[in-house]
């Protein structure tokens, strides 16, 4: 499939999956207030692949967690399609995550007592329209390691299981927080390939946080954060395949 076609389609329709309006997040630590987000306005569109860049502490994870319904902003509002996430009960947020969101974490967060396949099944069991767990593992080329426990897998393999777990429910959005942070270049590329394949084949709206500016080249759009604010939004005229990334 052609990535440029996809891009063209996405920019044409411009259906916003997420809309963040004036989102702020303030952490109170005793006397000190930490302003993690200071009025962020951003939209994520259907089927697009977005990379979030920014220095450490700039608020990337905070923003992603709020979009994914893991956290609530201090002020401002966040819409998923026409659902106001900021006006949702915790149980509604749970259902939102259950039905629509796939997460990939920097430290994988696999359940160590379950095998790769069981980790995926843990999620497909509660999903509405899941794919076959083996199919999800096949998408990250791990069908042969299905019966291994996380401790028996390498870091990259664990991260791929985490991706399989995230996509197995056919989520509408895939949110990845530094999925390659703990990986070497080669493994990082394998993981990114898996993510972009899912974006391409399933049309899943995908947001990836990274520190690595090189990765930005494979995105439709690159959003840079700095000190809790959107610093720059850049559209790539051309997307580079993950396998051709260099860093």
């Amino acid at each position, binding site marked *: 499939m052609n990535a440029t076609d996809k891009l063209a389609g996405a920019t044409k329709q411009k259906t916003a999956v997420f809309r963040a309006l004036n989102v702020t997040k303030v952490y109170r630590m005793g006397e000190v207030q930490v302003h993690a987000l200071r009025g962020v306005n951003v939209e994520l569109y259907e089927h697009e692949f977005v990379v979030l860049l920014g220095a450490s502490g700039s608020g990337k994870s905070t923003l992603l967690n709020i979009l994914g319904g893991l956290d609530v902003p201090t002020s401002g509002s966040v819409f998923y399609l026409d659902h106001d996430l900021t006006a949702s009960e915790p149980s509604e947020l749970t259902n939102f995550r259950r*039905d629509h969101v796939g997460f990939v*974490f920097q430290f994988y*967060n696999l359940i160590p007592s*379950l095998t790769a396949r069981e980790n995926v099944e843990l999620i497909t069991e*509660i999903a509405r329209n899941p794919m076959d767990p083996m199919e999800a593992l096949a998408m990250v080329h791990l069908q042969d390691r299905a019966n291994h426990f996380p401790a028996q897998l390498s870091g990259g393999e664990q991260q791929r299981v985490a991706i399989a777990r995230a996509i197995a*429910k056919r989520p509408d959005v895939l949110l990845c927080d530094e999925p390659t942070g703990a990986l070497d270049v080669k493994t990082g590329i394998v993981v990114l390939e898996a993510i972009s394949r899912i974006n391409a084949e399933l049309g899943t709206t995908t947001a990836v946080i990274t520190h690595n500016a090189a990765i930005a080249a494979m995105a439709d759009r690159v959003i840079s954060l700095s000190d809790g604010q959107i610093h720059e939004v850049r559209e790539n005229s051309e997307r580079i395949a993950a396998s051709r990334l260099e860093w």
Partner: protein
Amino acid sequence: MRKLDRKLLRDLSQLKGQSIAIAMVIAAGIAVFVMSMCAYVSMKGGQQRFYRDFAFADIFAEAKRCPEPLLERIGQISGVATAEGRLVFDVLLIVSGMQEPGTAKLISLPESGDQKLNRLHITRGRMPESDRTGEVAVSEMFAEAHGIVPGDEVSTVINGRLQQLRIVGIALSPEFVIQIQGGGGLPDKKRYGIFWMSQRQMEAAFDMSGAFNSVTLKLAYGANPQQVMTHLDQLMEPYGSVGAYDRDENVSHQFVNDELLQLRTMATIAPAIFLSVAAFLLNIVVSRIIAQQREQIAALKAFGYSNFEVGMHYLDLVLLIAIGGMLLGTFFGIWMAANLTEMYQEFYKFPVLSLMIDRMSVLLALLLTTLVALLGTWHAVRKSITLPPAEAMRPEPPPTYRPTLIERFFPTELLPAALRMVIRNVQRKPVKSAASVLGISMAVAVLIVGSFSLDALQYLIDFQFRMAQRQDLSLGFVEPATSSVIYELSHLPGVLESETTRGVAARIRFQQRSKRVGIAGLIPNPQLFRLLDDQENVVQVPERGIMLNSALADILGAEVGDLVSVEVLEDERPKLDLEVTALVNEFGGLNAYMNKQELHEALQESQVATGAFLRVDQNLLDTVYQELKIRPGIANVTIKMTAIKSFMETIAENMLTMRSFNIFFAVVIAIGVVYNCARISLSEQSRDLATMRVMGFNNMEVSTILLGEIGLFTLVALPLGCLLGYLLAWAMVLGLATENYRIPLVVNNTTFAFACTIVLAATFVSGVIVQRRIRKLDLVSALKTRD
């Protein structure tokens, strides 16, 4: 199977050791509960059935000699359903192969055939027949103690004449489920037997034809026992009655009821302690699991598992452990109840004492376990529920290390680095450290509570029979003995010292309250039979007035200086007004004391005695026994040493079985607690330890840090646990106190030492296990997990 449940099972198998340890603690609590409750209902059931089927009387009264027709009038008292008259006499007993004399209580069997009340259950042989001379049935306990079978013979001394008794049957009676000589004696199955003989033969032997000296009554439904007793007293007073009494004053009934009370207390206090320990352990373990699985919880929630599902997941884990323990405990409890019931059968003589499984208590055990599990882990599980997913995603903030208080005052630079690490680790998590210390203290405490009962028992015996009383023999006379009889006795060859006492039955009244008690007339400055208060001080009987023990004073509401009225229930039955001149704190009974001389004067009698205490040259014991056996007028002889020995063999055995169960459980708990604390320390520190190993520290050095922590906890916990154990023992003593006795709070140093040793041993074993784990620590995976 849901994958979440599979995770549960895998987590559980990962926590095998700890889960088993906790399940065992729960099992221990539930086992004691189920055992006590089942033993309780079994014994209560046995008692009630025996009382009902064999018509145990409600009211009893003894007199000197009542004419036959009086019985009819007694039967007409309103509220009396059945009345039965009989003859009861204590006589000396001579059994071949036993040097010392024993005591037989001879009770008559009605001529007409069937007894109406206190019917006998013949276990072997047959009932005695009235036309065959000397035929008797004997109590099973005595028969067993001597290996007596129907056809054997024993001798008694009746009115100074030796008479052969031919045993034709072995019997049980609801009146003597356990046989104890009256007057605060110890159960002595060898030297005290109950014998049933036909009425006609007893009338002849004791010159009592057409008379009875004891009456027992069955009350009609709804009758007022107090009124009946008042009536009965009025009728029997002219015939020398010392006052009617109800079942509560029947020694056997009292004993069984005390045992029942003890079982009830066991069923509450011990499980309460054990289950709180279990709840506590569950709390620390589950808190720890939840802290460790923070990020797994985050992932579950991020993918849409609800708070409820996550919470239930951890509750399921807890319940699985708890219910497992409960099932194990229930089966074990029933098994122990079966053993206990079997043992009771040797001690308490019921025709049938079958194990009854108390379904209610099994149900209650289930409820209790669930409750304990929920209470114990609620806090931790709530944390898993409320943990916001975004927060759970981040690892716990690194602990803040500050120079500790200890370090500020104590130059820790002098300490080896390992020890410094131990101290800092402990200080950095004061709550968890305190929890571990408290847990281990509980183990010590449980051991103390489980084993101190023997200390208390031994103290009581020591107090009563070594410190207070120094005689070798006590004698009771059939009739108050004159001074010449006493003189003769005290000059028997072999008797080194002698003292006498004058006991008299009386009813003491103060304001509206009254109580029937025996008043003991004691000589001043006794050397043999001394009175001690509960502080072991020698108490002198006041020269004038009456001294009450505080239990009796409480019942009467009388204080020092009050004037109580004393109705003597013997001979002339004088009524005396006496001033309460002293009170004495005693461990048991309701007692009143007077100066013996003063008592004689009040009764207007000479220097008679109802009992004597003798100190005897041990080499001449047999000669003394021979003399006593043939002397008329002696109703019973109690040999202190043999009585103690026999007591230890019976009651003590019963109590020791209970105690060994308790100790077994306490040991299980001690190991469970210590092992859990050690494992938690290990899992908390395995990453640090692995890092140290990677940096080149060897196993020994790394182990020191962990074992040092466990050792430190144990050392702090030992004294704390001793204190806690003492407090729990105190609670137990309060719970077991009855009107009849209270157990002194005595915990020997050996018990403290025992508890500490067991816990130290448990620490050692846990240390070895943990040490083995350190050696097998997977360095790579320990470093891989971010925790």
